[in-house]
């Protein structure tokens, strides 16, 4: 055979090398999934990775057992629709590792819904809102006057109370036990 073929052999040896390396490197399961080659070419073990991610937002029913009173009292108010964790933070590792969740009492939290935006054709326009710049003292937290668990303006006016109008609920037996 002529010497002309030698570069071809070198090329073939290179290709063979890559293919051998490939057979070791690529995970055995890598292949075509349910969605076919175009949309399902992947390593199926990765699905497990995503399924195993830790859940952080537990949902309001998770709070019910220890914080029953607050859980039920808010049910009869307009704030019943707000899940506990929106203001109290995700319940991950609470109460096991994190004894106390940090409550977001920043004015900005309330303004998410209650900064007035007079938008027609949007439900935002129907929410009672305030102008954050002019409503009372902008440096004072809303919870100073308003009870987020009972945001009843009538009650607020009657009591004229300027300090937390809602009382802190004592911990349930379970919560007390594990709180560090």
């Amino acid at each position: 055979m002529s010497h002309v073929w030698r570069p071809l052999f070198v090329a073939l040896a290179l290709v063979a090398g890559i293919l051998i390396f490939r057979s070791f490197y690529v995970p055995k399961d890598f292949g075509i999934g349910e969605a076919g080659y175009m949309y399902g070419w992947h390593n199926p073990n990765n699905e497990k990775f995503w399924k195993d991610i830790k859940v952080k937002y537990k949902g309001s029913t998770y709070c019910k057992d220890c914080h029953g009173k607050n859980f039920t009292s808010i049910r009869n108010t307009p704030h019943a629709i707000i899940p506990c964790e929106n203001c109290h933070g995700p319940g991950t590792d609470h109460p096991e590792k994190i004894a106390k969740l940090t409550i977001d009492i920043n004015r900005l939290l309330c303004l998410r819904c209650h900064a007035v935006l007079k938008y027609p054709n949007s439900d935002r326009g129907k929410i009672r809102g305030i102008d954050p710049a002019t409503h009372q003292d902008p440096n004072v937290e809303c919870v100073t006057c308003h009870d987020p668990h009972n945001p009843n303006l009538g009650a607020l006016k009657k009591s004229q109370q300027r300090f937390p109008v809602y009382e802190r609920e004592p911990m349930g037996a379970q919560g007390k036990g594990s709180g560090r």
Partner: protein
Amino acid sequence: MIEVHGEAWTLKEFFTYPNEYIYWSIQIVMYPFMTGLVAGAFVLSSLYHVFGVKQLKNIARFSLVFSFALLPVAMMPLMLHLQQPLRGIHVMMTPHFTSAIAAFGIVFSTYGMIVASELWFVYRPHFVATALELKGNSQRGLIDSFRYLLFSALTLGSYDVSEDALEKDEKAVGFLAGLGIPVACFLHGYAGFIFGSVKANALWMTPLMPVIFICSAVVSGIALCIITYIVTMEIRKLLSRRKGKASGLPSYEELRSAEIEEVKLTSKYLVMFLIAAITLELLDLIFRGYTAVKSWDILREVIYQKDFYKIFVMQYGMGNLLPFILFKLPGLTVRRAGLGACLMLFGVFMMRWNVVIGGQAFSSSFAGFMEYVLPIIPHNIETAKEGLVGAVAVIITPYVLFYFINKVMPVFKYKGAH
């Protein structure tokens, strides 16, 4: 605060989606620019080997070697751009061929092997001669021992340099050069396809993109070869004049006439491909304006307002029209050709910039803009890689490589059969 990739160099204006940034930055401008140079240089060398344009003999071998030096550099911007450069090999490991990028590894290595093989046939007699010469030298130093090993390996075990064998070499070169043209065009047209097939990008998506890319690639490749050829010839002229016959170079006058002949002829091909490229680009532009689909409002704003200077002044004006006039004015001189070629190279670079960065200059919301601010002084690895520093590194590397390759495969001194 944690900085997001792209945030450092992106300015956003009006309504853009929160996750939108200039994700494809300077390195993705460099990538088609460099592959364009590779493809163009190769096509130029093939003009001699395949179509027998005899006058191109000198520049042909030069551009072939240079194209080989540029090859690894076409991959460099991609490695600098990848967020996970060490995983780049995955493209070869689990290629997903519905992606335009997946075949890159295969096309690129095929092309690389073709160029390498062609070079092997061209330089085989040189390898054999050098290896034999070093073999005869019984008192080899460390360097010569290394050279001996290298050149013996490069002969691939074939020391046959008979008349018959050399004839076969010549045939093989012709075949590889012929095979290389479609592969080089594919390599680069394919870079155009990577952009042209992105349906989410209104500026990129056009079937003309691969063809436009090929034409401008050839323009840039030839332009670069002309420039480098002129520079090396000037140096040789200087040496010839200073040292005279002792330099072993042809006389100054011989060099001078050879140079201008070569440059004149090559510039003809340059202008030819330039016209093809411009025609297609303008066709694309006119078509977009005429059909005026949903995206036209924002595209018009980008093309005629935001990027007007970059597109019409820098790219078309300085990069295309001006060199066109320079080349077409009667009595072409080497200096004028050199200037024209530099401008054309700049024009093609601006074209790549206006495609890659221009394609991201507007939001997919069609209601906002993004501006790329090239990081000049890097403040972290990211801004070094995808900033001026990275771009300059990519530009310098082929010359460094060329220096070393020239040691093994001498471009000018060697008087091979081809």
